[in-house]
Every structure is written in structure tokens, then in C-alpha cells.
């Protein structure tokens, strides 16, 4: 029986420059911020990041870790525009693949199902097709003959997700109202790293019921116990978004001194014990 427990920095040390990383959560909700911070303080670089973007994207932009971003939006929810992401984009610092947010999901599902693409109407007629000339159309082989976007599979080298509970073998329980697309990030990825608020027994997980146990050990390679691991983002029911902390983070985009202090407090510190 494999014990998949690891520390944040050990989990990140297994990654390589240039990898494609998918990050779970949505906007400023249940983002694996402890894992993202560990990645930010590592020497890793030139990453392609796939995300329903929030402060995970902003933070990695600010640290210069992202070569290419695959996204449908980047937002802090209660603060609609992510300031660090904006700054990076307006500096021309990122290569981007901007998608309709539904196309992003289909790309993950195609990868998960080992299909080259999934057809969709989303994107037709829009500038998503103009700025992504690699996207192709496909014609229905049936009598309707409809022309559709062939959304290509988004294959991930690694996925980071943050869950409420997990056991040492990688079974999990998501206790909040929305699992988002975390299961699809895991299924689309070769290597799956899950952080959790608390490691418990399998029996304790089971008490939450199978509807919350969407991500199981067959979908997980590493488990990191990281209380508060969603950072200031919403991690219901364990904690809501810390709006004051989010405002403080957002304000650092315009204040280099504040950014250095924020970075020292939230990224550069390494307070970890081995399991």
C-alpha cells in the first residue's frame, strides 16, 4: 500500500523546466496556493500554465515563471481584474492561448479521454479563432454537416489541486459546493499533486459520502498536508476568502516594496516538516 505523503517542496522538486502545469480551482476559489508558492520559490522556469485563473496565475506571472498561459479568464472574483496578470500582459511578458472557458474544459476532457479533440460551437465567429490559428474546424460527418470547432486535447505534465480532506493514499473529499474541474485536471495530467487541509483516515473520508469523493487514489500521485493551503482564496467550508488578505496581495502590483514584503512572507519562507 503506497503512502503518497510528501512535502510541498519535495512535490515541486520532482517537476522539470518547460512542463505544462494545470492548476485546479476557479478564479479566487480553492486555489492550491501553498503548492503554487512552493513552485514560485523553486528554480523552475518556462512553464506552460493551464488554469481557470486567479491569484495562482498572478503570482506565477509576478515571479516570471510562466512562458505560456492557457486561459479563459483571470480574476480575483471580488476584485474582477487580477493586477499581476494585467501587468505581465501589458508588458508583453506572456505568450497566451486565450480560450472560451468552456473550450478549456473540453480540452481537459479530450486529454482525459485520450481523444485528439472534442467538437464544440464555442469559439465560432469569435476572435478566439483569429488569435489561435492552430485551432481547426471540423465538419460533422452526418446529414447536418455542421461546422464546429475541434478543441484539441490539453495534455498536462502535472496537475495541482487543493482539496478539503485526503488520506495518505491519495483518496480525497471535496466538501465545498462546487468541485470545479479538478477531477478533469487530474485525469488530463501524467502526474497529479494534491494538497489538502487535513490528512484523515479513509473511513473519515467515506463519512462524507461518495458524491464528495470525486478524486480517488487512482488519480493522485502525491499528497501534501497543507492547512490553509488555499491561501486567501475561498476554501469552503473550511474557510471563506480572506478579502483583506486578497486586497493586500492585489495592492502589491503597484508597490515594489509591498511586493518584496509579501513575497518574503508568503513565498520565500519555507516552514515545513516532513511527514
Amino acid at each position, binding site marked *: 500500500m503506497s503512502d503518497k505523503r510528501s512535502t510541498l517542496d519535495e512535490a515541486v522538486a520532482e517537476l522539470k523546466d518547460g512542463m505544462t502545469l494545470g492548476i485546479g480551482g476557479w478564479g479566487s476559489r480553492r486555489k492550491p496556493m501553498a503548492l503554487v508558492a512552493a513552485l514560485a520559490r523553486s528554480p523552475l522556469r518556462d512553464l506552460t500554465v493551464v488554469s481557470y485563473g486567479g491569484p495562482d496565475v498572478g503570482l506565477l506571472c509576478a515571479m516570471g515563471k510562466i512562458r505560456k498561459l492557457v486561459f479563459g479568464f483571470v480574476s480575483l472574483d471580488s476584485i474582477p481584474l487580477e493586477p499581476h496578470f494585467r501587468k505581465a500582459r501589458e508588458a508583453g511578458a506572456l505568450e497566451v492561448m486565450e480560450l472560451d472557458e468552456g473550450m478549456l474544459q473540453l480540452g481537459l476532457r479530450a486529454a482525459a479521454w485520450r481523444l485528439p479533440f472534442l467538437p464544440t460551437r464555442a469559439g465560432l*465567429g469569435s476572435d478566439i479563432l483569429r488569435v489561435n490559428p492552430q485551432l481547426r474546424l471540423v465538419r460533422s460527418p452526418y446529414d447536418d454537416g455542421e461546422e464546429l470547432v475541434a478543441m484539441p486535447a490539453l495534455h498536462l505534465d502535472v496537475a495541482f489541486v487543493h482539496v478539503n480532506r485526503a488520506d495518505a493514499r491519495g483518496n480525497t473529499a471535496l466538501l465545498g459546493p462546487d468541485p470545479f474541474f479538478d477531477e478533469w485536471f487530474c485525469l488530463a495530467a501524467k502526474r497529479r499533486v494534491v494538497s489538502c487541509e487535513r490528512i484523515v483516515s479513509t473511513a473519515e473520508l467515506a463519512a462524507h459520502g461518495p458524491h464528495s469523493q470525486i478524486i480517488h487514489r487512482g488519480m493522485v500521485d502525491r499528497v501534501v498536508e497543507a492547512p490553509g493551503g488555499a491561501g486567501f482564496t475561498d476554501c469552503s467550508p473550511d474557510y471563506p476568502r480572506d478579502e483583506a488578505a486578497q486586497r493586500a496581495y492585489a495592492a502589491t502590483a503597484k508597490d515594489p516594496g509591498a511586493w518584496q514584503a509579501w513575497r518574503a512572507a508568503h513565498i520565500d519562507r519555507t516552514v515545513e516538516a516532513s511527514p
Partner: protein
Amino acid sequence: MSLLARADHCLIALAELFADAGEIMVSPMGPLPALAARLARRTFAPDLLLTDGVAALVDDDGVVEGQMTYSRVFDTLWNGRRHVVMGASQLDRFGNQNISALGPHERPTAQLIGARGAPGNTVCHRTSYWVPRHSPRVFVPAVDFVCGVGTNRGAKGLGGLVTHLGTFDWGGPGGTMRLTALHPGVTVDEVIAATGFPVAGVEGEVPTTRAPTAAEQALIDGLLDPKGRRAAELG
């Protein structure tokens, strides 16, 4: 007319976007459209499905009627039984919408939120727009990036547009933007001046948007927005 009275006219115009929606999900983005959907459901559109903004469909009393996680939102929008009211940083005369970025896409002068679900929404179901501050900065001859598609790019069905000046649709020549009603006190010249391209429907007599009925006003003031916050988006 006071800002609050103007907001009430906007509110009714937004609510009336849902008059014939039936039993489908409406996704109003922004405070006033959200208020309008709740008003519509409590009055002339009782079958509307509305979410709590998190992951559930809820009734007038906040009782959960069903699951509406983001995954189910995509299922619903691709199924087509949905009417969304979105905002727009830019809109052209065909209703092409931009919420992604201003300037060149490879290096924007202003990065906005991103295309979100606008491309899919506009080709799968009815889409309406709410622009609280009608200006030539929003209504431009050509948008910098087409997120939501307009009538000339295959929109499934654009509903209506409500701004602080009046109501519009895309029933003008060739599917272009047309004035359908002015809020009381607003002139056609104000609309022309605030729109960066020619608007149809500005000749002749233009109808006026209606005020809330007494029953609607009582609901708005007594229950939905007792503190009168609804004018904030206009100011």
C-alpha cells in the same frame, strides 16, 4: 429625473428582457441585472430559474431547487435553455462584444478579464447586454477583440441592450443596433452623441421606457433593494 428613478427605469427594462423566457435559467451579470431577474420572477416571469451565484438553483426564498455547479452551467448553456445578460467593455453596431483586452492582443494596452464564456454563450443561446454608462468608448466602430459574437458573426439570438440612456435591439438594417425606447428625459441627440457609429431607430417618434408599476415599486423598495443601492452602477 433622479438617478434612482433612472435606475428604476433601467431595472424594469432589464426585467422585461426575461418577459417571455419561460422556464429557463437566466444568468444576470452585475447587480442591477441580478435585481431585475429577481423582480421579473416575483412578477411576470415566475418560472425563471436563478442561481445563488455559487453552485445552486434557488427559489425566491433562497431554498435550493437544484445543483448548478460550473460544470452544470456549461451543460445548461450548451443545451441552450439559458438567457445571459453580460456587460461589455466594447460593443460594435452588430453587437460584437469585447471583455478580453484593449489594444493588440499580443500586448494589450489594457488587459481585461478575458473572453470568459462569451464566445460560447452567444452561439448557443440568447444573450443580452447591460451597459450602465453609454459612451463612445464602449460603442465603437470596431471592437479590439470579438468575445461575444454579433449578428454578422453567427449569434444564436441577441436579446436586448439596456443602457443608462435607453433600450436597444439589433433590428436595424443588416442586423445593426437600433434604438427601441428612451428613458424619460433622454433625447435622441444624447444617444447619437454617446454612440461611436450610426444608430438605427432615431428618426420619428421614439417610445419611452416605463416606470415600475405601484406593485413593482413596492417590491423594489420594500424587499429587493430597500437601501436604494441600485443607482450605484449608474453614478
